[in-house]
């Protein structure tokens, strides 16, 4: 016979929340090439190119110190970041659909993905900050190149390099992921609204600063922030993306 249920059928056996979140981390890591392999191949490739250039330039008799100075303006150290935006997009766009098919909740998926982003960012930050120190200690890998010790890196010690890389890495991953949640929830209409909103915001800020003639003050404030201050802003943006993504993904519907 058929019983009318007056209480839920679902079991009450405990299953730790962490396990449900951790399995999403494992799901992202089941093909380690995506988060680890390819970014480091890109970075390694850039390093190899720089190394060969360094050997050629010094071999041709140029001043290695001047070369090292010039290389400080190379963006080679940031080369994997563009790819990692795409990783953030795909982590949501493709893996979410799969995880839902396997019975994960959107909440656990986002928390697990965020944890994965955190782990990746932490490891990358440790690695990059350490490579900066190695490069400096070896005099540019014994050929005088300046790949990691470039841009803002290598000036304020390991901890600043670590912190700035961590902030940048989290931002890059979360911006790709959170924008993708907007697409999954509202499709093209949401993307257009988001783009229009972002443009309106930028124009509004520019207009405000222009009409109040406060540009010099803004520049002064920005310069006063210093490297650490700027990357704290970046970290704040990453946090906004992370929280926004969590709110948006709760009712997202992948196809």
């Amino acid at each position: 016979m058929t019983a009318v249920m007056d209480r839920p059928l679902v079991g009450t056996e405990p299953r730790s929340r962490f396990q449900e979140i951790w399995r999403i981390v494992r799901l992202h890591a089941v093909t380690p090439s995506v988060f680890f392999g390819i970014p480091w191949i890109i970075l390694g490739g850039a390093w190899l190119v720089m190394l060969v250039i360094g050997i050629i330039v010094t071999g041709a008799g140029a001043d290695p110190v001047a070369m090292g100075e010039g290389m400080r303006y190379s963006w080679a150290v940031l080369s994997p970041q563009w790819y990692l935006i795409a990783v953030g997009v795909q982590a949501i766009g493709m893996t979410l659909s799969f995880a839902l098919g396997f019975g994960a909740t959107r909440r656990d998926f986002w928390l697990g993905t965020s944890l994965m982003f955190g782990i990746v960012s932490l490891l990358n930050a440790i690695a990059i900050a350490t490579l900066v120190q190695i490069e400096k200690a070896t005099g540019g890998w014994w050929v005088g190149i300046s790949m990691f010790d470039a841009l803002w890196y290598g000036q304020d010690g390991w901890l600043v390099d670590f912190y700035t890389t961590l902030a940048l890495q989290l931002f890059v991953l979360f911006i790709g992921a959170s924008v993708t949640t907007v697409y999954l929830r509202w499709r093209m209409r949401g993307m257009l609204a988001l783009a229009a909103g972002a443009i309106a915001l930028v124009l509004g800020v520019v207009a405000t600063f222009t009409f109040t003639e406060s540009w010099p003050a803004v520049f002064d404030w920005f310069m006063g922030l210093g490297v650490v201050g700027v990357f704290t802003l970046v970290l704040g943006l990453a946090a906004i993306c992370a929280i926004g993504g969590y709110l948006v993904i709760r009712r997202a519907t992948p196809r």
Partner: protein
Amino acid sequence: MTRTVVRASGLTKRYGSFTAVDAVDFSLEENRIYGLLGRNGAGKTTVMQMLTGQIFPNGGELEVFGRAPAEHADVLRRICFIAESQRYPDSFNASHVFTAAPWFFESWDAAFAERLVDDFRLPLKRYIKKLSRGQLSAVGVIVGLASRAPLTFFDEPYLGLDAVARQIFYDRLLEDYAEHPRTIVLSTHLIDEVANLLEHLLVIDQGRILLDRDADEVRGSATTVAGGRAAVESFVADRAVIGREGIGGLASVTIDGRLSQADRIQAAELGLELAPVSLQQLIVHMTGTDLRADAIEQEVAA
């Protein structure tokens, strides 16, 4: 005692002005095999997506294991639904899918999955996006079978599978179902292929449930009456006609409802041939547009 696993009432899903699922009521009992049958675009996948919390209904009530499924981990962990159009991460091959499966399905049987991989000759190391349609279906079928989830959905499992693979699916499903009873929902438009598997039928068309009955009841419920046009017409005159075909003086009419012994004798006396209707035929009659054409023809004839 049977428990109700799914209860839907007035369940509705709209996409803009299009109503994909229109206020349907049905329930699914524990440990039965259901067929969710209907034409392309009838609303089968939409129903399954709502039942598995992948999309959110616009109206009505839905309880799966006693709760709304969406975002309830303790409901979702009992469900397995690999959609026919399931997307996989680009970097995945089939072995990645089977590696991850046990983290999500607590009753996952790895040895069973391995055997099924051999049965279906599924290449484990080929990227999912490089698999053929049949191999892709095999991935979904293997996950569905080996997960042993209390509520398992198979969405068009036969798509692209060759005859041998279809037979393997059929055999393995019945074997495993006998040992590990669970609620299974098979959605398909290839009805005759699965007809013998199904215990209960839900026929859906244009977002509405047309039929919700035990398969055994349905199997004997319709009959095709063939013979001379005049004799056939007199025999079916006061019966529910669900299909009508004819060439010249011959007619073949499908009627709903069981025939009594007296009916059969009468038919024999009239020289009419009675034939059972296959499930597929019956559903074609129920969901096809030919019924309306028949209605017009009937009016013209009358």
